[in-house]
């Protein structure tokens, strides 16, 4: 187990900048639709507004409803400590850290589902049920991608994956990058898996799960969502930037940040250009991603 205190700066960057990343997507969508769109910092304004409000709790809910958003945010924030950024290894690095990393996500999801179910609403139940099925199918894809990366580098730690002398390149990298992109879209409930902007409770997943949350709790949930987007796009960005030759300690991390912005824009483009899949087709997409990851694993050296 090793500490890398300098990497706390990366964690701090994530904590501060992640709402900005979430704000890029609607801006791109607005641009596509020919509108001016909301300010880039809109998510910060939203958070500030929500933190300044009171709250309404349903009489059906229990302590689970109050605890859920806090615990989800804490686990996702804690997973930042395990996330490397190319030249910056994770703040806390040990063998097998990637397992804890993935399971922290599962933990956050478990409590998000319980929070939704605690309201006793069938809408929220529906969202929770869909969240559970899509997460179940996303997890093998994520694990197979990680297995490919770890096998290629012969390491058991996330921090060493993108630092090795011979990073993953070529067809395998493209395959894994594609799988990770689908994982990113599914984990963050974006089109084509979920549509975060729809008005109809029946068709939503993540947004419907938080229908009954208000005030600071909703702020925490929004912030958790932005951190999740940051983390998933961060991994993909590192994979894409890793083949670039090392040049000082800062160039590649900065390049990765730029890639993350580009990825957020890509999500915006995807949301503007393709429609949400029908619910019954989403499992096919996710299982397909797992199959691609399996293919990537087979051809990786």
């Amino acid at each position: 187990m090793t500490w890398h205190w300098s990497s706390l700066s990366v964690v701090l960057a994530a904590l501060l900048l992640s709402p900005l990343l979430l704000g890029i997507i609607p801006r791109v969508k607005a641009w596509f639709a020919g509108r001016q769109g909301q300010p880039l910092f809109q998510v910060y304004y939203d958070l500030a507004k929500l933190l300044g409000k009171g709250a309404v709790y349903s009489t059906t809910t229990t302590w689970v409803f109050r605890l859920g958003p806090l615990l989800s945010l804490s686990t996702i924030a804690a997973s930042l400590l395990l996330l490397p950024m190319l030249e910056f290894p994770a703040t806390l690095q040990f063998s097998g850290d990637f397992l804890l990393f993935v399971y922290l996500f599962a933990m956050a999801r478990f409590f998000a589902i319980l929070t939704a179910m605690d309201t006793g609403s069938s809408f929220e139940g529906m969202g929770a049920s869909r969240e559970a099925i899509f997460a179940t199918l996303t997890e093998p894809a994520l694990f197979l991608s990680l297995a490919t990366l770890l096998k290629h580098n012969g390491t058991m730690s996330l921090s060493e994956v993108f630092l090795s002398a011979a990073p993953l390149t070529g067809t395998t990298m493209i395959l894994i990058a594609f799988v990770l992109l689908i994982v990113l879209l599914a984990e963050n409930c974006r089109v084509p898996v979920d549509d975060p902007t729809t008005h109809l409770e029946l068709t939503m997943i993540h947004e419907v799960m938080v229908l009954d949350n208000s005030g600071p709790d909703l702020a925490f949930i929004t912030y958790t969502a932005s951190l999740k987007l940051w983390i998933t796009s961060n991994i993909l960005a590192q994979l894409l930037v890793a083949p670039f030759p090392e040049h000082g300690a800062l160039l590649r991390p900065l390049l990765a940040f730029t890639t993350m912005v580009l990825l957020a824009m890509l999500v915006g483009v995807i949301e503007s250009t393709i429609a949400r899949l029908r619910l019954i087709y989403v499992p096919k997409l996710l299982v397909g991603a797992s199959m691609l990851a399996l293919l990537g694993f087979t051809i990786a050296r």
Partner: protein
Amino acid sequence: MEIFLIALFVLAVGGATALACSFNARLASWMGAGSAVIGCTLGLIPAVRSLTTEPLTWHSAWPLPYCSFSLKIDALAGFFLIVILGLSLLGALYGGEYLYGYARQRKLGTPWLSFNFLIIGMALTVAADNGLLFLLAWEVMTLSSFLLVIFEHEQAEVRSAGLTYLIAAHIGVAFLILVFLLLSEHASGSMDFAYFLQIHDLQSKTAGIIFFFSIIGFGTKAGFMPFHVWLPDAHPAAPSHVSAIMSGVMIKTGIYGILRILTFLGPPPPWWGGLLVNVGVVSGVLGVWFALAQHDLKRLLAYHSVENIGIIAMGLGIGLLGISYHLPTIAVLGLAGGLLHVMNHAIFKGLLFLGAGAVLQATHTREMDHLGGVGKKMPLTSVVFLIGAVAICGLPPLNGFISEFFIYWASFLGTMQFADSRIIFALAIIVALALIGGLAVACFSKAFSIVFLGEPRNQEHQHIHDPGVAMTIAMVFLAAMCFLVSILVLYCGLPLLGQTIHIVSKLELQQIEYQLAAIVPPLKGLFLISSVVLLSTTFLMLWRKYLLNKRQVGKAVTWDCGYLAPNARMQYTSSSYAQPLVDLNCYILRTRKDVQKPDGYFPQTARFLSHTLDTAMQKLYRPMFEVIARLFNKLMWLQHGYLHIYMLYLVITLLSLFVFYLGIK
């Protein structure tokens, strides 16, 4: 060793006294539960001691042919004994209060006698050092648990569950008898394990047959798919503390049996590990999928036992592969993961069954779709059940995560170190564990939220409350153990697992110590991350409190989309929650749906029933047994009810045996 015998004696006498005290329920409960608690506590002393010292032995002759009353508690036996006696102790404590709830309807003497003999049977099975003694103890365990399964025998489904269990158990035993006969043939006709250990000239084919038979025989008890059919029927039928013990520890004697047989068979060829991995993957994934489709709370938990047995098999399988390919790291991590999961599953599954029992006692129903909102009335039960749910999903920082971590680790190493196509086993485990992880989260978010959250679906459940002291102590203790196992592994991991792994893998102890030390950094990392989560949650909680202070905090009904008359039955049910995932696997699950859709402009009635039967039972065993029954029906002419002709049969049999005997002379 004497302490162990005294413990067994206390259990036996206590059980008999409870039977004698049948007339007074309170006295019988005190006798049964009290003696079980004392007996288990006494038994734990030699079990713990055996982990670090030389094996404890006891030997005395017995007039039975091939049999001797030889007991030996080595580290492998000790490890399983700790798990068995530990959970039995808590089960007895819980049962003392739980069974007393039935005092008005039935006598409690027999259940307590069977309960104590179940513990004796399990303890002797693990401690036996002789094949025949092992089988006898196995039978004591089976029969006493059968008596407990048919506790509520006036219900037809309980009787049928008991019958299924009895038949399955004895088909299993048939294979076990073959295993021990084959072994004793190569051990100069002796049934003593000491002789089995000296077998050297075993051909790989014979060893393979023995291993395969023991997978079937022990797998039937352990609940490997497709030999698991008795499990989802029998576990819900038994009283809850017995379900906890059957599911938590009794099925583990099957795992113990496989490990014990492995020590006799010499170095394992790769296909053994591969077979175990296959069995594990099938049991694990399908077990949790079937669990997801259930709406009977205890049946759901029973299917989860199949899943967890699958995870254990995966761990042991990858460990065996590690031994076969001479990769000590994988061997040690895999076996450690499998063994640790044996203990962890006993803890959280015991906890969940006890929690389910508390709900059952309060509400008198196991049907999840009739429950709801129980958490408000039974806060303590809901907290411990949630802890158990988080643990069984393998979520950090609880114990389920630790053992799955070992198995994942071994498998990821396997993807790097196994030669060419053998990688497939490691990869299968990774995919299966990932899938199981997701499905378990779906399943337990469903079980917990449908039962404990939301609004009560049945208005009669207004006056339910948490159980009394004894039941609470047992549940809280197990919940605490879910947290403490990681600390136990960190500081006592080697004494707990080292010797046991040494016995199974025959690796050097130093080697094992070296490999196990690798787990320390991840565990410390886990602690650090958990404390970060804890701290930040506390901080957020205080911050929210500060923010909401002096602001308006309102109470309202749940957002109902403007519909004015929502009622509790409109909530998402367990069936509707699980439907997308269940339909995804409809080819195997074969859920039956009985739908009457609302029809016309003013629909009067509509209904929806879904039921997921066990596919192996419906498609494999039922047709098979129907054929057998048809064949036996052809022999009906032998049975006509004339006593004198039956006696003639006896005479003919005796005569022919006599002739046969003279013939071989």
